[in-house]
Structures are given as C-alpha cells and as structure tokens.
C-alpha cells in the first residue's frame, strides 16, 4: 500500500508491505525491513537492525504526534482529499490564523493591522495563569487582521490574528 505522509512539515511517499512477522517499507528512496508490534495503547515497539525502539503515537489534530529517540514529530497521513486541500491552501499563499492557546487577557499589542512580521515575532502579549507570554507569528508575512484589542479577554482557541504570507517568500 502507498501513502503520502507529512513528517514535521516535509512530505514523503511511504510504501508498506507486510509479510509474516516483518514489514518492508520504502520511504522516499530509502528501504527499511523491520519488526513492528503494538505493545500497549499508543506504544509501538520496533526492531530495526537489532535496534529496539519504542515509538509513542497519539492523535493530534488531523494527524498524530509521534515520539521516538527523544524527538516528537507531527505526522499526518495525506489522503487524496487532504492533499488537494493542502495544495489549494498553499496556492492561496498561506493566510495563517493565530489562535489563543489558552484563556487569558491581551495585555499588549506588538504588531497591529498591516504590520510586517517575521517568523517567531510576537504579535500580542497575553497574560494567562499569572504569566505573560508572547503569542508569535508562525510565518513571515503581514498582519491581515488583528482580531483583539489591548485589555481584551480571550478564550482558548479564539482568533488573535490572521497573518498573510502571500507577499513573502
């Protein structure tokens, strides 16, 4: 079976073939032969080249959060419909919504409507759980819409800003 998989932002083709006790996989142009077993809920055990590897898989949004070797990666299986959506999305040149990770209060606006922002540049300062933290832009772009004002109370998942990345790149 063939799949298209996005691992930490990069897309690869994965081909899997199951035989007795073994999995043969092709990821991009790399080949793997391994043993795999779901040993506990959310835990897979792999034997790859005599290396005993534990992998932790938990659902995360549309995909999974996969941890192994001290790294945690977002992984998403793209079916035909999702692939189309992804392409269309990037075709629209990435207007990205920035949302509040938890309820809190906007104490300061750092980048208003129309402001140019770099990746990881703060858009607002939010106070939550007695701590102040910057809510950052994930991409380079322009603030297309700032949805909050100073002093506003926001709930978890509320829209803070839309960053338009179309002018960038």
């Amino acid at each position, binding site marked *: 079976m063939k*799949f298209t*998989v996005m691992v930490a932002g990069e897309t690869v083709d994965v081909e899997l073939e*199951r035989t007795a006790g073994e999995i043969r996989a092709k990821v991009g142009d*790399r080949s793997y032969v391994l043993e795999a077993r779901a040993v506990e809920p959310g835990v897979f055990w792999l034997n790859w080249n005599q290396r005993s590897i534990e992998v932790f898989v938990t*659902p995360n949004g549309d995909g999974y959060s996969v941890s192994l070797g001290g790294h945690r990666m977002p992984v998403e*299986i793209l079916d035909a419909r999702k692939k189309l959506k992804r392409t269309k999305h990037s075709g629209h040149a990435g207007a990205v919504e920035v949302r509040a990770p938890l309820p809190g209060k906007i104490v300061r606006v750092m980048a208003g409507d129309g402001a140019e922002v770099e990746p990881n540049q703060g858009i607002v300062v939010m106070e939550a759980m007695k701590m102040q933290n910057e809510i950052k832009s994930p991409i380079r772009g322009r603030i297309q819409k700032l949805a909050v004002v100073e002093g506003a109370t926001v709930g978890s998942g509320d829209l803070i800003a839309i960053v338009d990345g179309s002018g960038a790149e």
Partner: protein
Amino acid sequence: MRVIRACAEMGIATVAVYSEADRGALHVRMADEAIHIGPAPSKESYLAIDKIIRAAKETNADAVHPGYGFLAENAAFALACADNRLTFVGPTPKAIALMGSKVESRRAVARFGVPMVPGTMDPVESQEEARKIAASVGFPIMLKASAGGGGKGMRSVRSEAELAEAFRTTRAEAMAAFGDDAVYIEKLVEGPRHVEIQVLADHHGNAIFLGERECSIQRRHQKVIEECPSPVVDSELRKRMGKAALDVVRAAEYTNAGTVEFLLDRDRQFYFLEMNTRLQVEHAVTEMVTGIDIVKEQIRIAAGEKLSLTSDDVVMNGVAIECRIYAEDPGNNFFPSPGTIRLLRTPSGPGVRDDSGVYEGWNVPIDYDPLISKLVAWAPTRGEAIDRMQRALREYRVEGIQTNLEFFREVLNDADFRNGQFDTGFINRWLGQVKTNASPTQAERDLAAIVAVLADSVSQKPEPESSGVSGGLWKLNGRRQGLRRR
C-alpha cells in the same frame, strides 16, 4: 495525594475537597470521602474558607491538613479551623501571621541574633529614605514587597540612577498584587545559593532540624530542582544553620513542620530570608535522605504527641534530587500546556519516587499551577543520584501535552550542575546560552512515518480480529478512538 498516603498508612480516613476542574482528580479518587466545594476559580473553591470549614463539619472531620498551596499559609484559615474545633495540621495562626510578614518576621528573629542581609526592617516610605538606605548598605540592592513571596514583588536595583523608577514600580506592583504597597530594602547578595532548613517542633517545647535542602536551581524565582543535602554544606555549616533555624522557631513560638530559608553567599555566610509555615513541595528529598516521614510527623505533632527524636538522632544517608515536572512548553518560553494526557508512563525501579497527581486520560486543568508530578531520585552519592534521575527522566513518558522533562535532561547534563557549582542565577544564564537542539535523524523521521501509517491503518478499519497484525492494535485503536471523542 501526599497527605492521603500518610493518613492511609496511619489508619486515618480522609476527605478530599474538590472544585469543578478537579472532578475525578487523582487525589479525589484516592480519598475515602469527597466533597465538591465549588467552581474552578480558586477564589470560589480552594480559597473559600467557609466552604472548606463547612465540608469538614459535614463529614465530622477532626483535623484539616492544608497541603502546600492555596490556604496553607493563611492565618485566617487556621483561625477559622480553631474556631470550629478543627485541628489545623500546621502552626498557630499567630505564628503564620508573624512569619507571613517580611517586616515583622525579621524584627522577631533579629532579637535572637539570627543573621540577616543588611537592610531595613521597616517599610520604606519615600524616595529620599530609599536613597539614604541604599547608600548606607551599598548597591546593588533589592526592593521587596513586604506582603510578597514566592519570588513575586521584588526587583534588583544596581545603581542610584535606577532607584526612583524601580521604587515607584515595585510599590505599584505590590499594591496591585497584594493590596499593600509596603516595600523594604535589602543589600543584594551576589552569587547566592538558596539553602533551607527543615524543622519540626512539637507542642511541648521540643524542636529539631532535619538537615538542609539546596534549592538554588530556580526559574523566575520558582524552584525547579531541589536536593538534599546541599553539595556545599558540610556538617559544621549544617549545625550552624540548624541552630539558627531553631532560633527562628523559638522567635516565632513555632509548632509543626516548617522551613527556614537562608541565602548562602560565596564566603559561606548565611542570611535569614523567610520562614515557610507549611509543608514544602520539595519535602520529599529530606524524607528520602533522613528516612523521616514529614507528613506523618505533622499529624503526630498536631495530635499533641511529643517528638521522638533530637536533631542529633537525625542521620543523613545519601543524596536525593527532585525535579518538578510541569505541563509547560520549554520551547515556547515555558508557556503552560494544559490538556488531556493521552499517554503516561511513570518511572520506577531502584531509588525512584514519583509523587504524581495525574493519570492517563486526565485533563490537566488550566485553572491551577500545572505541576503534574514531583520526581525524586535517591542514591548513595550525588553523581549516582544525578545518573539515576537521568534514567528516570528517560523512562518518563507523557504524551498529549508538553512537559519540561527534556529541559531537566539537559540541565542535569550541564557540567556546572554536575559539579555542584551554581547559584540562584544558574537557570537564567543557562537559558541564555545557545543550544544546538539535535533534530531527528532521517531514519527517525522515516520510522515515525512508518509507525504513523501502521497506527492509522488500524484506526481506519471498522472491525476487530480481522487482520494479520497483532491483537494489541485493536485495543489500541479502541482506546484511542475513545480518547479522541473526549
């Protein structure tokens, strides 16, 4: 949880109180009885004295253990317990109130000759007065809110030029945070370590100390790693600090368990900071090294029993280290990361103690401090204790939310930490260093993709027992689907 465990071992039945957010929390499940006391905001539940007193009376409780948060250092609560003929497992309201005031506590212990950082004891009223005092003790200085604590309401001032502005903002912040703008001045001790002494005092005039704890590893003035003993305190210094701590106990006419906090400078001079009139989060490291169950001692003292030991009977054996495991994201400025724990595996094995408050499927609420566990490792030597902690941190798996586990793994690898060479500024400097975050290898990325496909193919199929893949997958899928619907 900690208190429930001690009670269970002593044959005492327990009642847990809980807010809306803690419905189904681990400590509530473990208690014999449970009383719902209100909505998630702590003001309307865990800080509502009348509601907690009512819960105690309703269940015919004899005593109230306040834990180490919320009302644990609240004199009004201790008084309310006394008024309602409930034994408060802690010091008297008077001792709590006295030690709760920075100014009053300093005045009280000064009479017993306990060393203190040079500075004022009284609130500083004006800019001019502040300037005079600062000049007499010498810069750098600290401005501190009298009603502050836990690292809140204090600010360092390095020169006279900064003083006016700093004085104004510290007062304003103190007013906003504590409703009291009293501020005092202390000389700033450079390169200080935070070393505290655990004390126990009964109602018969006996008081003992259980060695020290090294708590210099702090982030934003909040302790994150604690150890017992301190790598720089020898038995001679321990005795001197212990004696000073017992002087503080006498000054406050203190009873029950408490902690006397000191600053220790580079020349091994120590200065009284404050006294915490409750059980401390980090008490477990002292328990592991001394073998004394502090919570049981608290209960015995509250019941009027005499201490069965003297300070000389306390034997320090080995080294214990504690890491405070938080639901927070070190990659995003330690922003809280509440949410559902999708997968939890806790470490065990020799010398490991995990005082956890969560379970798989538990939703870490956004309403409170996101501390999920206190992980303690004990070993005969400090080096072995660090290695053991590293092993326990590697065993620890939490999925679904972010945690600071990886942060601890890196800090414990730091050469200065391993050598015991650090002060309270360690974490700040450490965070400022450029770190090369190892990214996953190509093989790790590929294996992640393969496993995701395996997990996904399982979750897509509707019927169990119809594939060549091992049966565990179906259970996995069922569980995961269940979680997803939550």
